[in-house]
């Protein structure tokens, strides 16, 4: 009886392994040519796994809009896309990367996409440390091209800055340009504490808040840094000064925003929205339903998007996106930034005649008419390190007529560059627990924030 069992199991196991290995191209084969091979790297696990369909949908909507892609399932972008062509070349999406917001998995997935599936171009990744890891990978793989999806850490295009990596959106600090001035002028904060996820995006996001707030004269009295995706924030919120000891809190927690705020309320009682300024995670990635209802009236940093912005360019983008994937949130950066990355790729391929490698990197556009861009005829510009100089929009959580709560644009900050007016440099340390220091300085947009009312940018300066 036992012998019979093994007689069955062993050949089956060997057959499975053999078939898998052989079918998966283990044996050396000649290099493939022809179609451009594109990989979309995003997260399907971890704190940002929720964004999997958003990211893929954003990228594929651009392929559908500008490169003839045919959507397979309007409600499920990961079902795939066919018929993409650009610059006379067919474009095949060879795979979707499944990250979990860690650098370790990002490298594993990048290897799978770029080496096993032989992608020429990656659109992605999603998250801060992932982009740091992919940027370092890109340094050693110069023939392949990397267009960051929506990751907001500073390092990939400031300190690392491989020549084959492009980012058509702001980093986490850029997204928060102007929010410190709003805290100082509209809320009257003079000192604040800050809590940030202890990884590259948390640090970069916090760096924007700190730099902007300190630039106008504010003081940061305490910095607290829980690990990303922490489960229990009790000990960390206890490190913050009590609400009666500080004017307000900058909240740069993205992995578990609801959990961190719950811990705060358990420690100090009900939170006053006017004492909180969040980053994009107060309103995106599902937090519009979990966090936002408790914080109606709170201000938050942006995502490089303008929810409700009434410009022709914004409306064109929103209509195009929804025509391909009707359920995607248009002003969510997880969608919008991937859309722009893929659109830039299409433009690059058109200019390179479908060539990849160095030819594509040379042909990648240096400006892009992204949906929510207004300044310079509505064009995002790339700097010398291929990083976007982008308009930013600061937001406020408001109650809509249907009872839901969501973000609206309240301030417009044009042409925010990654150096933050010279504060950040390639030779300076990237944002960290103690970087940047809090110091008063002049930023290019200081005193020039324009109020936005009902989706229209006014000439009124925020005072």
């Amino acid at each position, binding site marked *: 009886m*036992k*012998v019979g*069992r*093994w007689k069955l*199991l*062993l050949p089956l*196991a060997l057959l499975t*392994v053999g078939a*898998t*290995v052989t*079918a*998966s*191209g*283990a*044996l*050396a*084969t000649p290099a493939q040519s022809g179609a451009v091979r594109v990989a979309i790297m995003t997260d399907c696990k971890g704190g940002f796994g929720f964004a999997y369909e958003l990211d893929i949908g954003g990228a594929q909507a651009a392929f559908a809009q500008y490169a003839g892609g045919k959507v397979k399932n309007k409600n499920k972008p990961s079902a795939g896309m066919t018929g993409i062509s650009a610059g006379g070349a067919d474009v095949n999406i060879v*795979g979707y990367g*499944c990250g979990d917001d*860690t*650098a*370790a*998995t990002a*490298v594993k997935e990048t*290897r*799978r996409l770029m*080496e*096993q599936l*032989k992608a020429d171009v990656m659109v992605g990744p999603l998250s*801060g*440390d992932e982009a*740091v*890891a992919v940027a*370092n*990978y890109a*340094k*050693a793989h110069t023939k392949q091209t990397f267009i960051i999806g929506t990751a907001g*850490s500073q*390092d990939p295009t400031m*300190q*690392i800055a491989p020549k084959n990596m492009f980012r058509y959106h702001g980093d986490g600090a850029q997204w928060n340009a102007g929010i410190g001035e709003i805290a100082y002028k509209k809320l009257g904060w003079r000192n604040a504490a800050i809590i940030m996820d*202890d*990884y*590259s995006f948390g640090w970069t996001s916090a760096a924007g808040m700190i730099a902007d707030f300190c630039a106008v004269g504010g003081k940061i009295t305490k910095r607290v840094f829980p*690990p*990303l995706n922490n489960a229990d924030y009790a000990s960390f919120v206890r490190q913050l000064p009590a609400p009666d000891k500080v004017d307000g809190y900058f909240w740069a927690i993205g992995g578990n925003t609801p959990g961190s705020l719950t811990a705060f309320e358990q420690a100090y009682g009900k939170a006053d929205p006017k004492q909180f300024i969040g980053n994009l995670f107060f309103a995106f990635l599902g937090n519009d339903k979990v966090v936002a209802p408790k914080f109606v009236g709170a201000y938050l940093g942006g995502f490089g998007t303008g929810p409700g912005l009434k410009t022709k360019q914004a409306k064109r983008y929103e209509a195009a996106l929804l025509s391909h994937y009707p359920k995607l949130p248009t002003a969510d950066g997880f969608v919008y930034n991937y859309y722009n990355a893929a659109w830039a790729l299409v433009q690059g391929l058109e200019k390179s005649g479908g060539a990849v490698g160095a030819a594509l990197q040379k042909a990648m556009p240096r400006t892009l008419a992204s949906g929510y861009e207004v300044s310079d005829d509505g064009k995002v510009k790339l700097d010398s390190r291929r990083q976007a100089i982008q308009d930013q929009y600061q937001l406020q959580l408001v109650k809509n007529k249907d009872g839901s709560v969501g973000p609206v644009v309240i301030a417009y900050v044009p042409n925010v560059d990654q150096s933050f007016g010279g504060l950040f440099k*390639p*030779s300076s*340390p*990237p944002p*960290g*627990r103690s970087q940047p220091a809090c110091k008063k300085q002049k930023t290019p947009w200081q005193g020039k924030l324009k109020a936005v009312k009902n989706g229209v940018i006014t000439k009124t300066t925020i005072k």
Partner: protein
Amino acid sequence: MSRGAWTPRAIVERSLGLAALVIALLGPAIFSSYFTTTILTSTFIFGIAAASLIFLSAYGGMISLSQTALMGIAGYVVGNLVTKGGAGGETKGLILGWDPTLALVFAIVITTAIGLILGLVASRSFGIYFLMLTLTFGVIANYFFGQVTKLGGFSPIASINLYMPGWIGDIVGHPDKLYYIALGVSLFVYVLIRYLVRTPFGISLQGQRDEPVRLASLGYTVPLHRALAFGFGAFVASLAGVLFVWWEGQISPQNLGLGATIDLLIIAVIGGLGRIEGAWLGAFAFIVINNYVRDIQFPFASEKGVLPWIGGSFNTVIGVVFLLIVLLSPGGLVGIWDRVWDAARRRGGPPHAQSEGAEPAAVASS
């Protein structure tokens, strides 16, 4: 049956081993670049790490969950010592810019020393208590490197493989170099362990595994034996750690986290906790499944299939394989081989023939 005798089984096993070695030596010519530089290179590296775990389990009766952490410590030592800062340089860790060869030696020495200290602490614990203690070491290491940002922090120390010893040269542009180095180190570790377990130390280590009280009564210092074995396991893990950062190019706390610890345990269990060969077999099976199953659609688990909630993911498949191995062959893939061989012998020879040729080690009861 004397050890090393050319029994039929030994002949078959050695022939298979030799064939595998020849194929491995010809790997870059036979297989695709991805298969050699990713699948096989990582098989060798994780095989070495799993060998350290299997050595402790099979010959010392200690199932250690610290091996991933020890591997990570070696990686962090290399990362902190070799990388350089400044414009265009690295930004995480100590960025000391040491000579890579010196850093390599330091990594091995420091990791082995830490292993010896941990071994001394844990040497009087047995069974589940030893398991929990070593798991605690692993968790501490994970949080230590995540929280002490001067040594790295949550974000990775990257581009470590750009700082290689001069006698090795560029492995980023020539990844086959690392393939052969990992293959060579695997062979070295395999031979070293096979040699060690035949020395008086190895024999007494197996003695304390089976009868610690009796061995102590004979005058042996059991805790010292266990601590030294743990130190040796740390030495082997440190080799895997150095190779890992050369291969991966970076190190972050996730590389020594709970997930990575469990992955290594799964590799060892799939391969077989009873024989050293299982380390590389388990690593190969785990890595092949991890890399290739993702793109296979299972009819029963697809969107329109009978069981859509199962999904066609790696985790599902590796979980099923793990379950099957634990239920049907506690000795892992190597155990299957042992059973098949014994079954074949029973059919062709005396029913109670001793299973010859197999290692004296047994699956640890702890």
